[in-house]
């Protein structure tokens, strides 16, 4: 459990560090952005044998992500909850390997952005355009693949090195 918490904490901090190197706004979407915390959750799910703990961690991440970066913690909490459910469904459909983990990570990022787009378009006074959503999804592809691949190998190496079968 400690490894997963440390990894998710690093992923949360990565959001800020990488946003300094690849700054991005709705008006000018960078090709090297992703949501590292969501990728982190997608990587860690197969190592949990207890879904309740995974959801707890997902909710905690959503809560922290909301407080730190969006100042809308309930909104983030709901979105991360949905992403958590999506991760579980996708791992039930697809086998666990590097390619499928990449695909699952990207689908989860897509889910987050699409839900954000729909809910914010309904509830906030800000006008959002479909083109922004498309740009963001395209901009998320490269970094999602890079971070997922690196994380996949590192996490698997750590789990094998310490002989950990599942997160307790």
């Amino acid at each position, binding site marked *: 459990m400690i490894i997963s918490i440390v990894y998710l904490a690093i992923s949360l901090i990565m959001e800020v560090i990488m946003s*300094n190197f690849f700054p991005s*706004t709705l008006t000018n979407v960078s090709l090297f952005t992703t949501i590292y915390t969501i990728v982190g959750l997608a990587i860690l799910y197969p190592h949990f044998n207890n879904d309740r703990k995974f959801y707890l961690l997902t909710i905690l991440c959503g809560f922290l992500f909301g407080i*730190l970066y969006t*100042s809308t913690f*309930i909104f983030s909490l*709901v979105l991360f909850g949905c992403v958590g459910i999506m991760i579980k469904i996708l791992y039930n459909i697809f086998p666990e390997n590097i390619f499928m983990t990449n695909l699952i990570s990207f689908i989860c990022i897509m889910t987050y952005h699409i839900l954000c787009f729909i809910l914010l378009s309904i509830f906030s006074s800000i006008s959002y355009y479909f083109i*922004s959503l498309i740009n963001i999804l395209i901009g998320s592809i490269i970094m999602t693949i890079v971070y997922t691949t690196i994380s996949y190998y590192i996490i698997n190496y750590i789990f094998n090195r310490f002989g950990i079968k599942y997160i307790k």
Partner: protein
Amino acid sequence: MLGKKKKIPKKYIVIGIIILIIIILIILSFSLKKDKKMNPIFSFIRDGVLSVEKFVSYPFIFVKNKVNDYNDLMDVKKDNDILKTSIDRIDSVETENVELRRQLEALKSELNIDYTLSDYEYLNGTVISRNVGYWFNTITIDKGSYSGVEKDMVVINAKGLIGKVIRTTTFTSDVRLITTSDTNNKISVSVSNGGDNLYGLINSFDYGNNYLEVEGISNTKNVSIGNKVYTSGLGGIFPSGILIGEVSDITTDSYDLAKLIKVRPSVDFNDINYVSVLKRKGVNNDN
């Protein structure tokens, strides 16, 4: 028979799901309410974690700044030549400035104008987090209510208007960028065409082409491509005279009554590192 669970009718399950969705939607709409103040506990958590993040990301930002400094150093000869010519003019500009300030004060008292840019002091801050998660179009700066930052204060940098403060914690503030198409908060602008100032409103932002759309300027007035666009000071939040950008395209509305002006922002919103928060003089001077 005793151990058998009672089956809930399907219609109750459907009603339950609908009620649950309605409750979630109500909670979401409440949580996205713009003016909602951050809970002190959450504010404390946010300040704490962002301080840790600032500490952790410092080496990375240091390296990035050094690389930028090196790039700037490459252009130093060219900049030096330009500055030398500017220095020759500095005495006359200084004298002109004193005279203009005297005239401004006289005109302000005559016209009963409350605030102009000179009535603000600049509180400098550094960007610590940028638009993570995209959709909220905000940046976070390292100055909060402790430094006297308040909601709705205006944020600028050397190139022009950036946005306004929408939320503060003790040591941080969230700034919403002017590129946000917020239908409830349109910014009043004036287009300077040499002689006249023409007034309009920023209607929206074109995400595809990266320009602000200004509406409400009469079709009978002359506007040229390249004219500067400033805040007009009308509306109460943004003081007058802050550069927004310059006119890049002019069309008319469907009734041929008003101009639709496309304005290229002067600020590169992907390259904001340092900002200044405008504080009205005398409001809070603890920094």
